[in-house]
């Protein structure tokens, strides 16, 4: 019995090793001339990951690139450095990372290996000033706009137009998301401006002190402390951190204007005038924005430079998709690569990206314009 058991286990181990070997060999099928780029994302699954991979797969052949993926930790710098080191070790000539974590240490590794680093949907808030002159850093594309002021004002305008009178304010802690303070202030300023001239009955009350979520779902006592609110401005990821509590406490009559997006039907079927109508605004950045760091990296790797190349690394805004009504949601479902996960729905084709390279006559201005021409209006016009 025992011998049989050992044999079975040994066979199992051998089978695993053989299967692993076969899958690994299959993975190594690429030719040696392609440029290998390492991509570090802070999630290992989800629609953003699927769409990013689909986009990069779609353009890889045209650009003669090969992409290797790792998952970064949101809180562990050492783990992120290890991930970056492993990408370098596997032969990557450039890295695109979504986390500003251990960035200076990673750039030292890049310098040692003679490779480059770019940022993707991250403002590199903590390290940008110290790394922007680093020759191995090619710049980053921000998750939307660097300043939160505009979105705060836009939401305030919507709230005023749609007639909500008692507004809850929820965000993540300032130490982690400093730009949410700008959204908060801009929103309050706009509402104050409105209240200054509005009749008493039309005045809007805003939650006096914004609730900070410590990366945990909203607590039920929020409704006990704020019993009269009819809408919430969720500067944080409200789909994951606010909506579950609203549902649990049968408070989906409260309207939610929040950052983030989900392809899940439980969210989209309750958007606008559909379902419980809780969600009134969702916002997401386009995965095609990765074009910015990718093109900057490829220029560096190939020894090319834009005619208008900036003297130091840039932090470039990207346009976002703001979904404010059911028609826009339908457009997103039909045409956005983030939702469909299909390269055919991409804002940029492989040849579009290729044309942005310095060697093909592209300029930095064209590149910035490309990542800033992916708004809801652009999507509708597609």
């Amino acid at each position, binding site marked *: 019995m025992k011998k049989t058991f050992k044999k079975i286990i040994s066979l199992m181990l051998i089978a695993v090793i053989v299967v692993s070997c076969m899958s690994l060999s299959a993975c190594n099928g690429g030719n040696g001339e392609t440029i290998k780029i390492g991509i570090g994302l802070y999630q290992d699954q989800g629609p953003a990951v699927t769409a990013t991979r689909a986009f990069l797969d779609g353009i890889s052949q045209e650009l003669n690139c090969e992409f290797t993926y790792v998952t970064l930790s949101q809180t562990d710098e050492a783990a992120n450095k290890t991930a970056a080191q492993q990408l370098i070790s596997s032969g990557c000539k450039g890295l695109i990372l979504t986390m500003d974590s251990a960035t200076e240490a990673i750039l030292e590794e890049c310098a040692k290996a003679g490779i480059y680093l770019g940022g993707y949907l991250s403002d590199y808030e903590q390290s940008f000033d110290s790394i922007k002159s680093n020759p191995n850093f090619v710049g980053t594309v921000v998750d939307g706009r660097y300043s939160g002021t505009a979105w705060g004002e836009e939401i305030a305008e919507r709230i005023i137009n749609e007639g909500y009178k008692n507004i809850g304010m929820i965000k993540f802690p300032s130490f982690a998301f400093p730009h949410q303070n700008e959204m908060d202030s801009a929103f309050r300023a706009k509402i104050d401006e409105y209240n200054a001239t509005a009749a008493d009955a039309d005045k809007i009350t805003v939650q006096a002190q914004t609730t900070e979520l410590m*990366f945990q779902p909203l*607590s039920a*006592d929020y409704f*006990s402390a704020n019993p009269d609110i009819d809408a919430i401005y969720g500067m944080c990821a409200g789909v994951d951190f606010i909506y579950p509590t609203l549902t649990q*406490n049968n408070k989906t009559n409260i309207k939610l204007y929040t950052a983030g997006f989900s392809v899940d039907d*439980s969210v989209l079927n309750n958007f606008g005038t559909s379902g419980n109508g809780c969600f009134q605004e969702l916002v997401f950045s386009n995965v095609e924005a990765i074009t910015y760091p990718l093109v900057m990296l490829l220029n560096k790797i190939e020894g090319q430079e834009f005619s208008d190349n900036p003297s130091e690394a840039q932090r470039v805004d990207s346009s976002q998709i703001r979904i404010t009504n059911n028609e826009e949601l339908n457009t997103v479902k039909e045409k956005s690569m983030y939702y469909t996960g299909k390269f055919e729905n991409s804002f940029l084709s492989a040849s579009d990206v290729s044309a942005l390279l310095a060697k093909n006559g592209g300029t930095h201005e064209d590149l910035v314009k490309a990542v800033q021409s992916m708004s809801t209006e652009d999507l509708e016009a597609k």
Partner: protein
Amino acid sequence: MWLITAAFGVNNFVSPIIMRQVLTDGSLTAIIALAIYLQFKNGRFDFSGGATMILTAIISGNITYNAGGNVFMFLGLCVAVGVILSLITSVIYSFSHVPVIICTIAVTLVYEAITYLIFDAKGLNIISYEIAKFGKFPFIFIPLVIAILFFLFYSNFTVEGKRGKLLSMGQKSAVNIGIAERKNVISCYLITGIILGLGALVYGSQNIISPQSNLSTSSILFSYIVPVFIGMFLGRASVDAIGITVASVGMAIMNSGLDCLGVGGGGVQQIIFGIFMLAFYAFSGQIDKIKSIFMRKTLKNSI
């Protein structure tokens, strides 16, 4: 907690919303704590409980949703999948002769890895659907009552449940007197599977679940372990299942109170939680000694 919150000027602690939340949170905690405790009671620490629950919720929730099923289909599937996964763990453990912690850690890694391979690694998000009804007040009491009944039935009215006590007190002696340990393991995991299935039903109805990796489900397990320790002590005054349920509601009251005080979810809450757990456990460990000192004094005085 009410007095503390009142002292800090918080006057909304005893409100219907918070009380409802306390009972909802307490019920989920109680179900999971019962599953952990059932293995404890039989002398084992099952590391795979969190992973079993998460995988059960993902499989059952997605199947029910995709099939357009109702809440009872979700309930039935959760119990069935929970039992199947638990039985797989029990068979691996009882036939491999690998120590239970190591074996269940290995199983945890496999179950976590499966969460990436099924349903396009989407996890589970059904919180706003009708099938999530058992995660809400007052329906949440149905899975809680079922879990308590199964726990009590197994522990007090089955031969295997009683043999489990012998095995936890003296494993070698129990085996030597002829208790079939393997049978006990499988039956115990069967009941644990049912309770974990009920836990998955409630957890999946209340939370958006993402795929898990690198033993991250152990943090789910550890976050529900404190009521087990407290409940074991409280249970000495009545029935252990009731002790765990009361301890779970007590922990939910504490958490809500800290939320009301504005220290929910942050570092201060963690520190208070740790101190409370240690103080409670230390006190319960010393209670017999304190009792015996008082008994001796009373005896001396009477002489």
